[in-house]
C-alpha cells in the first residue's frame, strides 16, 4: 500500500463513528472561590458575580496590591491527613472536595470493592504553597527544610492522600498537563471505567498557588490582568475587545464516576447527567501559543466519542483565559466547528484561573448549566472582540436553555495539550 493510500485508510478509520459508553456521575464536591456548596456556586455562577479581588501578597519588587486573584475562604487547618503528616494547602482542598463528592455520591467504603476503586487527579503546580514557604525558610532565618517537604510537594501528593483516605487499591494516577490536568484526569478515568479496569473512580483536580513566588512567576509571563484601579473584580474579561489576561484562582473540584452497571447495582444516582465524550490531543506546535487546528481536532474527537455532532451541543464552557492569543485561537476553533450554533460561556472571569484544577471546576459549571437548563453569562463582557464575529457569547445575564441535553467543556494547556469533555443529560 502506498503511503498516500495508507494515510487515507487511517484517516477513514479515525473518523469512524465510535460512540463509547457514558459514564455515571454520582457525586460532586468542590472548594472554589465561588463557594463550597452547590447553592453558593450556582448563585455566583448564574449571576456572573466575580470572586476576583485585589490581593495583599507581599511580593518582592511588586506593589502588594497590584495583583487581582480569586480568593477562597477555606480553612485548611480543619483538614487532616490520613498519615498525620502536614498537607499542602492545595492537597487539603483536594481532600475536602473529594470527601464532599464521596458524601454526595453516598459512597460506602465498606461495601465497595476497593481493588476496583481508582483515583485520577490533576494539578499544575502541586505543592506550590508548601514549596514556596519552605524554600523561603531555607533561604531565610530558619535555614532548613521540613523533613516531609518532598512528600508534600510531589505531583502525586494529593493522589496519595486521597488513596490513603479512601483505601483505594485500584489505579492512583496523577496527571500533570498544566491547565488541562484535571480534565485529562477525568477523561482518563472515563476510559479506565469504560475499559473495565475499574468500576468507580474519584476524580478531579486542584491548584493553590496564591504564594509570592508563584504569583511573581505568573506575573513575569505577562499573562495576568492588571486590576482596574476601581474594579479589580472585573480584571478578567474573556473574549472582550479589551481583555488583558487572567486572574489566578485557587480551589479544587471532585467527581465520583462509575460505570452505569456499578451505579445501578449500588443504587447510586444523585446527579442527573453522565459524561458522554472525552478526547485529548496535543498541538505539537508551540509551548504557549495554542493552535486552533489542534483544538478543532480535540473537540471533533470528543464529539465522536460521545456519538454526537456539533449541532447536538447546546452549550460550551470555553477555556477562555482572556489572553490575547488564547481567546483568539479558541474563538477561531469554536467558530469553525460550531459557528454561532452553540452558546459560549467562560467562567474564569468569576472564579479565576485555577490552572490544574480549572478543568474540573469548569466541567462542574457546565454540569450545573445542564442541571439548571440555564447558561451562565460571561461576566464583564460588554463588547466582544470584533474578530470573533460569529461566535454566540452569553453576555449580560444568564440565558434560559430549556431542553438542554449536551454540553462541552474545553481545557487547553501550556505544552499544547487539549482536553475536551462532553456531558449529557441522563
Amino acid at each position, binding site marked *: 500500500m502506498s503511503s498516500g493510500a495508507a494515510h487515507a485508510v487511517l484517516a477513514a478509520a479515525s473518523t469512524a463513528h465510535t460512540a463509547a459508553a457514558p459514564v455515571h456521575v454520582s457525586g460532586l464536591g468542590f472548594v472554589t472561590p465561588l463557594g463550597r456548596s452547590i447553592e453558593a456556586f450556582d448563585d455566583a455562577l448564574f449571576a456572573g458575580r466575580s470572586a476576583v479581588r485585589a490581593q495583599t501578597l507581599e511580593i518582592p519588587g511588586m506593589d502588594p496590591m497590584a495583583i487581582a486573584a480569586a480568593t477562597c475562604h477555606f480553612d485548611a487547618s480543619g483538614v*487532616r491527613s490520613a*498519615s*498525620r*503528616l*502536614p498537607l499542602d494547602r492545595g492537597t487539603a482542598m483536594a481532600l475536602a472536595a473529594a470527601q464532599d463528592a464521596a458524601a454526595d455520591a453516598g459512597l460506602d467504603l465498606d461495601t465497595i470493592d476497593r481493588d476496583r476503586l481508582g483515583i485520577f487527579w490533576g494539578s499544575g503546580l502541586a505543592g506550590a504553597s508548601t514549596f514556596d514557604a519552605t524554600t523561603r525558610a531555607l533561604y531565610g*532565618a*530558619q*535555614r*532548613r527544610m*521540613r*523533613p*516531609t517537604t518532598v*512528600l508534600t510537594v510531589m505531583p502525586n501528593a494529593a493522589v496519595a492522600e486521597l488513596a490513603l483516605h479512601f483505601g483505594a487499591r485500584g489505579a492512583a494516577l496523577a496527571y500533570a498537563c498544566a491547565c488541562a490536568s484535571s480534565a485529562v484526569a477525568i477523561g482518563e478515568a472515563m476510559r479506565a471505567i469504560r475499559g473495565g479496569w475499574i468500576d468507580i473512580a474519584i476524580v478531579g483536580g486542584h491548584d493553590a498557588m496564591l504564594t509570592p513566588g508563584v504569583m511573581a512567576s505568573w506575573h513575569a509571563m505577562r499573562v495576568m490582568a492588571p486590576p482596574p484601579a476601581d474594579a479589580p473584580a472585573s480584571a478578567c474579561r474573556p473574549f472582550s475587545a479589551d481583555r488583558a489576561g487572567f486572574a489566578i484562582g485557587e480551589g479544587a473540584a471532585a467527581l465520583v464516576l462509575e460505570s452505569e452497571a456499578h451505579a445501578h447495582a449500588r443504587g447510586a444516582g444523585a446527579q442527573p447527567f453522565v459524561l458522554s465524550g472525552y478526547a485529548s490531543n496535543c498541538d505539537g506546535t508551540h509551548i504557549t501559543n495554542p493552535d486552533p487546528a489542534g483544538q478543532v481536532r480535540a473537540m471533533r474527537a470528543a464529539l465522536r466519542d460521545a456519538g454526537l455532532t456539533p449541532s447536538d451541543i447546546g452549550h460550551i464552557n470555553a477555556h477562555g483565559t482572556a489572553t490575547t492569543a488564547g481567546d483568539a485561537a479558541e474563538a477561531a476553533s469554536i467558530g469553525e466547528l460550531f459557528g454561532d450554533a452553540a452558546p459560549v460561556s467562560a467562567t474564569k472571569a468569576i472564579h479565576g484561573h485555577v490552572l490544574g484544577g480549572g478543568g474540573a471546576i469548569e466541567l462542574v459549571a457546565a454540569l450545573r448549566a445542564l442541571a439548571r437548563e440555564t447558561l451562565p453569562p460571561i461576566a464583564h463582557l460588554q463588547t466582544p472582540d470584533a474578530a470573533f464575529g460569529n461566535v454566540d457569547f452569553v453576555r449580560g445575564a444568564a440565558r434560559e436553555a430549556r431542553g438542554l441535553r449536551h454540553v462541552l467543556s474545553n481545557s487547553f494547556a501550556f505544552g499544547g495539550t487539549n482536553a475536551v469533555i462532553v456531558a449529557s443529560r441522563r
Partner: protein
Amino acid sequence: MSSSPTFNSIAALLETDFRVARAEISPATALSDLGLDSLALMEFVFAVEDAFHLRIPEDRLDPREAGITLQRLCEVIDAEGEAAAARSEPMAATA
C-alpha cells in the same frame, strides 16, 4: 509537669496537628508510643521547635530513640529556652 505551660503546649500540638488522642498524652508517654511513624515524629519535633522558637540540638533529642518521654522533651525545651535567653539571642541567630 502535667500542668506546665510547656507540657500543655506540646499536648495541644499533638492533639490538634497530629491527631493524637488526649488520653494518650501524659508526661510519661514515650515519643515512640504516640502512634506516629518516624517521619511524623520528625515533623512533630520541627513543629515544637517552631512553636517555642528554638532549635533542639540533635545530640539532646533523637525522637527515634526508644524511651524518650514527653517529660524529657519538656525538660530539653525548657533548658534550650533558658540557654537562648541567657545568650540573649533571638531564635533566628540560633538557627
